[in-house]
């Protein structure tokens, strides 16, 4: 009796083991190949010179040397064709510094306004979220037209801002990156607004009621209750925003072109990795550049999380 029970137990245990491994096998296998193996291969590749066809030649750290010489040339003021990585890096850092704070701020403010007893909350939610459901490439194509010299955006701005002179946004090196940043903010702030709205609706109502009894107005309640309670969500949104902004590709590809537009004003690190791998056919250098980009993204998000996001993973 006792023996047979344990044998059934053993049997179900083996059954569970086999079933478990079988069920996860495809997912694990694919992720191991296209995730871990690819990552390790990128690291390996970054020490080799190759053209996809011939034999691979070990070159040590010279691919990384190419990247850092590029950065140093850029710091010394070399034109962008001689320092593409530096140009891309400089641009995405400026772009990130514009996009992430504005989209986060806008998302919080809009969520706070929408998080009241008002009619049509669903309508606002849907309208704000709509850009996020559309491909960023498609969005960029539409905005190329809106940003034309005789375009809609210049028209609106001349009417909103007194004395505004129409700008040739996409052909002017001083405004190209700003135009891309504006599209990015338009495209993602509504998406993050919905995240904030969900987080706000999870804040217990009692806290607000107590504050109201103490005579705190809506603005005070926003700064002393909503913002502190949203801290984990703010960290999450900023980190996601940083990761997205530092890898920006689609918008620049359409609005500036693969070469980054006039003076490389819309060039990004992601475009540079693409060009290195598929235009200049230097996969080793592309791999080195992608590891440098990874290091930048990792440090930036790590520092931010260490500083602000103790509670969040």
């Amino acid at each position, binding site marked *: 009796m006792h023996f047979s029970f344990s044998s059934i137990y053993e049997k179900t245990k083996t*059954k569970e*083991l086999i079933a478990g491994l079988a069920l996860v096998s495809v997912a694990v296998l694919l992720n191991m190949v296209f995730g871990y193996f690819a990552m390790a291969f990128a690291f390996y590749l970054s020490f080799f010179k190759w053209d996809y066809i011939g034999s691979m030649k070990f070159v040590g750290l010279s691919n990384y040397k190419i990247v850092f010489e590029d950065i140093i040339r850029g710091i010394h003021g070399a034109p962008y064709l001689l320092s593409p990585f530096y140009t891309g890096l400089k641009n995405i850092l400026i772009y990130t510094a514009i996009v992430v704070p504005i989209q986060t701020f806008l998302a919080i403010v809009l969520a706070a306004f929408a998080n009241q007893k008002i009619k049509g909350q669903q309508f606002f939610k849907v309208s704000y979220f709509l850009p996020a459901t559309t491909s960023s*490439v498609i969005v960029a194509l539409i905005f190329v037209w809106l940003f034309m010299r005789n375009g809609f955006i210049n028209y609106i701005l001349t009417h909103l801002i007194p004395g505004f002179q129409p700008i040739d946004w996409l052909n002017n090196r001083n405004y190209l990156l700003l135009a891309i940043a504006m599209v990015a903010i338009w495209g993602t702030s509504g*998406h993050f607004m919905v995240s904030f709205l969900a987080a706000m609706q999870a804040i217990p109502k009692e806290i607000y009621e107590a504050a109201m009894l103490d005579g705190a107005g809506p603005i005070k309640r926003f700064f002393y209750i909503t913002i502190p309670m949203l801290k984990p969500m703010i960290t999450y949104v900023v980190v996601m925003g940083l990761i997205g902004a530092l890898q920006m590709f689609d918008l620049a590809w359409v609005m500036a072109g693969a070469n980054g537009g006039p003076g490389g004003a819309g060039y990004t690190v992601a475009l540079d990795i693409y060009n290195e791998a598929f235009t200049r056919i230097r996969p080793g250098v592309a*791999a080195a550049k992608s590891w440098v980009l990874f290091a930048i993204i990792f440090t930036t998000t790590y520092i931010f999380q260490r500083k602000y996001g103790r509670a969040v993973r």
Partner: protein
Amino acid sequence: MNIKKISWLTITYLVLVAFALVYLMPFIRSLVASFMTWEQASKYPPEWIPNPFTLDNYRKLFRLELFPRWILNTSLYAGIIVTGNVIFSSMAGYAFARLRFPGRDALFSALLSLLMIPMFVTLVPNYIIIYKLGLIDNILGLSLLGLTNVSSIFLMRQYFLSISNEIFEAARLDGCGPIKSFFYIALPLAKPALGAIAVYQFLGSWNAFIGPLIFLRSPENFTLPVGLTFAFHRSMWTEYTPIIAGSLVASAPTIILFIVLNKYLIRGIVVTGGKG
């Protein structure tokens, strides 16, 4: 209602309506312009009523042999990605949540840490892998990369963890094996989560750009986003209005899907984190 409250409400509506206009205007403007001639659509100051009202932009688009192909390719790609994710993520999510086997937690955390890796790191090696498999310029080769997705697995696992244990225990006592209880208990209960994954993966694959751009080579194999940028950069039209019409056609499925399913979708995207 006092004055303070009314003025606060007024400000609220002013802000919300103003921003709704900001977010909707590009869509409205494109919709109107897609029925205009390029001559009218590029007028300054902008005009709002198509005169003459023309379907020429859409006609030009569909007369182009490639455009229907691009729609077909995008649908095929999205179909494969959605199916793959629904099948493999529910399987893996169930096993990670409900079955005990050695190495389970280690495997799961190994998958989770992949979320931190930027796609540009794995891009070149994956290109080489697909190239070696002889699957470059092939929708199937491209699909291989997205058949499973760590965030879908994560979402399914969370969902299966949230289902109470008793129902699985009862099934086990009735002699229902792990595979059987996956098909007869877990899957039927997981419909909402599977729906969220399906919709979310549909949006992602329909809108995907970098993957299709790199892994597809010949114009007849392109997906819609890649095809439209190709048409744009090649200046296939001297006027811009067909591109606008094409952009609207390309975004119509996701917009309609979103308007119909927005409640579920927003919930799903809040959970999975959404696009970067």
